[in-house]
């Protein structure tokens, strides 16, 4: 290679790989820390130990109840957000006009508006309705925060749908609910599934608003992790981080495999 080519092509490429390393490698540090044989946050000294993973499964340590709490809230949130999101996206797509456009902006705004502002508002509102530190309160807030994702995912699916399909069904005399249920819905199943998954993940990960509207009664997993990070001692924290990392990696690999298979089927 000529020196000029090394500077113009090789150097940026090397830099790009270093930056990719900066993104990925630091996350891996939680794995050795989770395997430490000490009872404080440290790298393993005299061999590795699985005791901190065992602590996760110990009900009295609080990690397992928090995981179940988060899973339950995320399931409820995904179900409600998906139902609301499907109805809204389909209705807006079929009706058009200023009202759905305006409501769409409002529904999507939690993606831009800093969540801390929403947290301030919700603390006030839930205090008045005595929904602070309740499952209902957390689920409703998570639904609001998950709706932008379901609306976008289902909207993307709908934008590939041919409007003439609806016209054909209607001209053949299908009633409105039949059109929605039997013509539109079956065609957007992938978008609905993606929306439900995104809503689940959004709820499972939510921390900023949850932090202010929960207390002792509802301890979600992110909240438990938050408290534990501030103490910065318990290696079980690294163990739970490792578990979350493994789940993320497996989910991404599964998605890649599914996409790969779908592409192969096309040819």
């Amino acid at each position, binding site marked *: 290679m000529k020196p000029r080519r090394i500077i113009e092509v090789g150097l940026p490429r090397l830099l790009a790989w270093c930056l990719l390393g900066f993104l990925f490698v*630091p996350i891996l540090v939680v794995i050795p820390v989770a395997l430490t044989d000490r009872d404080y946050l440290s790298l393993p000294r005299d061999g590795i130990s699985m005791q901190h993973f065992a602590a996760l499964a110990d009900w009295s340590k609080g990690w397992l109840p928090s995981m179940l709490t988060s899973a339950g809230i995320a399931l409820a949130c995904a179900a409600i957000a998906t139902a609301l999101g499907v109805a809204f996206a389909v209705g807006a797509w*079929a*009706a058009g006009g200023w009202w759905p456009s305006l409501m769409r902006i409002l529904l999507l705004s939690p993606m831009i508006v*800093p969540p801390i502002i929403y947290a*301030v508002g919700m603390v006030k509102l839930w205090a008045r309705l005595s929904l602070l530190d309740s499952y209902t309160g957390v689920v409703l807030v998570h639904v609001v925060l998950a*709706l932008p994702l379901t609306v976008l995912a289902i909207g993307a699916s709908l934008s590939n749908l041919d409007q003439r399909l609806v016209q054909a069904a209607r001209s053949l005399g299908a009633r409105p609910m039949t059109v929605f249920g039997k013509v539109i819905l079956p065609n957007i199943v992938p978008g609905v599934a993606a929306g439900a998954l995104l809503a689940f993940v959004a709820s499972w990960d939510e921390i900023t608003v949850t932090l202010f509207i929960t207390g002792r009664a509802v301890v979600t997993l992110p909240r438990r992790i938050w408290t534990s990070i*501030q103490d910065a001692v318990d290696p079980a924290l690294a163990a739970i981080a490792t578990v979350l990392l493994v789940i*993320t990696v497996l989910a991404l690999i599964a998605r890649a495999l599914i996409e790969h298979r779908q592409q192969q089927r096309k040819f």
Partner: protein
Amino acid sequence: MRNFKTTALLLTVPASLVAIGLYAAPILQVLALSLTEPKFGFANYQSLFANAAVGRVVMTTLKVSVTTTVLTVLASYIVAFAIIHMSAGWRRISLFLVLVPFWISVLVRAFSWITILRRRGVLNSALMETGVISTPLDLVYNLLGVTIGMVHYMMPFAILLLYANLSDIDRRIMQAARSLGARPATIFWRVWLPLSLPGIALATLFVFVFSLGFLVTPALLGAGKTLMIAEYISVQISSTSRWDLATSLSTMLLLVVGIIVFAAMRSPALRAAFVARPQQ
């Protein structure tokens, strides 16, 4: 005919009610409280501008947000540009390296950085054992740690935005430039960069707005020593119960974010980038 449209509009009602009642209303109440708590008027705003602590917090927030945005967009552009030039196999690996941090919990990422950067952390231990330094460096619970954590959090977003934008650019333009005798550097500065400006602008906008109101990473990696607006607001509502301060500062933050987004939407390229992605 009428019946169909009415049914469609009815379907939008439940989500709209949730958005109005559980999103718009509580936020409007924050705005209202900033003018009425404890009594009606702009007194809260006057004391906000006279408050030296708030001034320091705002300066820290701006400093961190600007640094984060510049570093993130620059680094993300380098990565996204390299990814679109890779073979399919390497591209898949690179995108995997971006998607893992993109999807993993922000708390896990903050925790990883604390483990690496703290005084008895992985990096300091390694540097001390190899004899590079004799006393541990202060890498976290300060401006440096917050900035590292923020750049690490924002980069996957920015890379994916820029990657989508760069993939949409028609490569035949570069072929044309090359066949006309342009050197690679010229092609980059005169063709790639101008065509990717909308993507860069969108990434800059998103990263800056997210940084301004970000709570988790600054709070965990700053640990109260590097206070940014979101954490300052959180202290006002959870420990000192200063609702006047919390609501007026929230309103200011919302106003600034609103102005930035509104100004950005006036640019046709940005509006197109925003609207084209979701449904029409």
